[in-house]
């Protein structure tokens, strides 16, 4: 792997990537995470990468998000376990069948909330978040200014994230 472009860029920028993980709050585990990142780029099938350093930063960023998500889920499992352990005898837990129902219901709620933002805002959000189109290209595509795209995206991402958080509260 060291021969491949990505491996070489990794080694040349090891310290920068380490600093990035530390900035993310990796603390003592930053070195371990860097090692994990090294293994990841070594084992995955990656074609030629046009911006190798940017690619590595993004992979490091994803690694931190995965780690953060895993910690959060572990905490939630602990809470769920405590709640399950204090269930009143004779009352069953929510059946597993509810899960897909909730997924589809959430989809419906999210789509409604997105549509409620207006056609342009919803379309811009979809192009950016789901299709992965750059803001500049969306502006050109839709014939609006870059600042309109930025403003719409702020509005839409904020609405979506707030909605997501409300699911946890309910």
């Amino acid at each position, binding site marked *: 792997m060291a021969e491949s472009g990505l491996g070489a860029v990794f080694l040349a920028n090891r310290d920068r990537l380490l600093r990035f993980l530390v*900035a*993310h709050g990796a603390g003592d585990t930053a070195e371990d995470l860097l090692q994990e990142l090294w293994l990841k780029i070594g084992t995955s099938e990656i074609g030629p990468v046009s911006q190798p350093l940017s690619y590595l930063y993004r992979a490091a960023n994803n690694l931190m998000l995965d780690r953060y998500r895993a910690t959060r889920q572990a905490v939630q499992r602990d809470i769920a376990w405590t709640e399950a352990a204090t269930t009143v005898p004779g009352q069953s837990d929510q059946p597993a*069948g509810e899960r*897909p*129902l909730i997924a589809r219901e959430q*989809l419906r709620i999210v789509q409604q909330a997105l549509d409620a933002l207006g056609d342009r805002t919803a379309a811009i959000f979809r192009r950016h978040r789901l299709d*992965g189109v750059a803001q500049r290209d969306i502006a050109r595509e839709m014939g609006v200014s870059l600042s309109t795209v930025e403003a719409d995206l*702020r509005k839409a991402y904020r609405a979506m994230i707030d909605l997501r958080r409300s699911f946890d509260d309910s």
Partner: protein
Amino acid sequence: MPEDRMTIEDEALDWVIRLRDPGFANWEEFEAWMSAAPDHADAYHAMAIADQDIAEILATPGPKPLIVNTPAPVMPRRSRRGWLGGAVAASLAVVTGYAVVSTRADPYQVETQPGERRSVTLADGSTIALNGGTRLTLDRRDPRIATLDRGEAVFTVAHDDADPFEVRVGDDRLVDVGTRFNVVRADGRTEVQVAEGAVVYNPRAEAVRLDAGHSLRVMDGDAAVQLGAVAPGDVASWREGRLIYDGQTMTEVAAQLTRYTGQTVRAAPEVAERRFRGILSLGDRNDVADLAPILGVKVRRSGSGWVLAPL
């Protein structure tokens, strides 16, 4: 402080958006922002994860395409619109405000061991016959909803236009239109065979109407729903000790034999994918070894169970 929190959240949100741009390259600027205050990284993580969750919800699969195995059991969609509207409205009424429904539900379970069969009658007069190795989740507060967690059951439903009976199975839903139907849930597979009346499969997605004599089969994660035919008299014939197959794999035959007889039956890898058409008459004898000539395999003992092996 709340004002500060807003500012940090807004900044974090901007980073979430900027990082999503495919050409994003200002990693060092992003790093500097995260390092500037201890709660910056946390604010970013929380928002980035909520954003990932939203994308995941938006990627929830929509309706699957339908594959028709046998001559046209599906009627043209347009002609169904009249009653479908009713079914959709009714199912929406059930799920609007899912949080309310799920907290009000008072679920209980009915379970059979392999080889055991029993029947339950619900408050509305509907009856459900459970094959062995089956678990159903029912709701004391709502006798019109049943979840088939695993196994096989025949639903004989007291029909009510205003309050259709709904069976949940895997990720899917079946809504009755005056019905007797059999449902199998095993190994990530859902099968439905209709003996009388009709059911609607996933009224809010595929919205397929299955009339008497029609069957449906879908694997979890599959892109398509397969539709087929079944003789109405053969539906749920397991209740009379007859197991009827129309091209199921030996693995599926073995799973149903296990459910029915309570003896562990499995298919050897060499025959696992082989398909079987025919009728196995078990009656009350439950003698798996006797089935060898019909199945065209060798049935040999393995521990306390049986293996279907090549001849």
